[in-house]
């Protein structure tokens, strides 16, 4: 049976969503623990989130 590509894209998007959620959650924890480093944590968080987001979009366009 052939699985449509959109299903694969959906799986990747679920993965990307979970990944970004984890990054956001960890960043929250880190900021709560060290509020003075919030600027640096935010920057690192945005980069990581953007990299995962790229994968999500690539999956959407491949489908």
């Amino acid at each position, binding site marked *: 049976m052939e699985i449509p590509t959109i299903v694969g894209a959906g799986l990747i998007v679920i993965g990307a969503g979970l990944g970004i959620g984890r990054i956001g959650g960890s960043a929250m924890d880190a900021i709560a623990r060290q509020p003075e480093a919030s600027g640096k944590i935010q920057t690192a968080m*945005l980069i990581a989130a953007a990299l995962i987001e790229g*994968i999500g*979009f690539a999956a*959407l366009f491949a489908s």
Partner: protein
Amino acid sequence: MTGKKLTFKIAFIFMLTSIMSMAEQEQVSHETETNHTETEAIHSGKEKQQQEIKDFVNHHLKDSHDFSLYNYTNDDGEKEHIGIPLPIILIDAENGVTAFMSSEFQHGKKVVEVNGKYLKLYHEKIYYTDADGTINYDENHHATNKRPYDFSITKSVVMILVTSILMFILFRNLALSYAKNGGVPTGAGRFFEPIIIYIRDEIAIPNIGEKHYKKYMSYLLTVFFFVWFLNMTGLTPLGVNVTGNITVTLALALFTYFITTFTANKNYWSHIFWMPGVPKPMRIILAPIELLGTIIKPFSLMIRLYANMVAGHVVLMSIIGLVFLFKNWLGSSLSFGLAFALSILEVLVALLQAYIFTMLSALYFGSAVEEHQEEH
């Protein structure tokens, strides 16, 4: 005091923007309304409206050969377009260069004759046709007519030129004003100085390093403001979706790729082809992966900016379209509020995407000039 005033002014302009994009959308509803009352039954009228909204969104996402401001249906039931025609430049092996204004096409209604050949504008693409303007299709409903190479000054090109000129004048005057006032920012400088300092201190120096950051600053600042300004013009009622055009983001990503490749030092290349600190057989496996990585990095830059802008525009336009599908005071006003909130979110996304593009470019430049003292 002036800072507060400036913030207020900017906020006000943004608010005006979102309201005005609604005003532009109003036209669609008006057209369907008249068509619907004249000919169609209620049910098919709704479907037609859905189709019309879809077409409007697609049209908005596409580049176009004329700068149309708005259109309406006149008393005879014909569509009237109001806008500025733009020059069309076509290059062909046989005919050479031909140029004329896009108004000659009359939005695809008329066939233009150039040097004995007939040209027709069809879905924003120019095709060679016969004198009647027949378009042939294959089984997938794609046109099979031949096309000349299209080097036209389209809407996106106009907007890119306008933004470039605006940036040049703005930042040149800014630089000159510093010399005149003895290093104190005035006017627009008060708004832009913190942003420029932020890019230097928070993006360039931490990622590239004190030693090398200066030669990349011009590119990072240019790309940041270019992407930001174009993202913002995409949200204005002019409806120019420049950064939502994959060719534009491809060009920007290629700049980053070439700068990374041509300014890289020997450490960068040794990390790609002969990774230090890993076992020998592993290095052979890693080399192609790393080499592929150099292309994937700018590729993801391209996709990210393009997809974010397209997704934002599609969602925003669809939500605005809902206003005309609901046609009752509760649903329509809810959609209106949602569209307003989304517009503000899009303003944030416009800035965020420009920031991320600059940030990741700086990261890649940093990896290109990184120096490793320690020997593994």
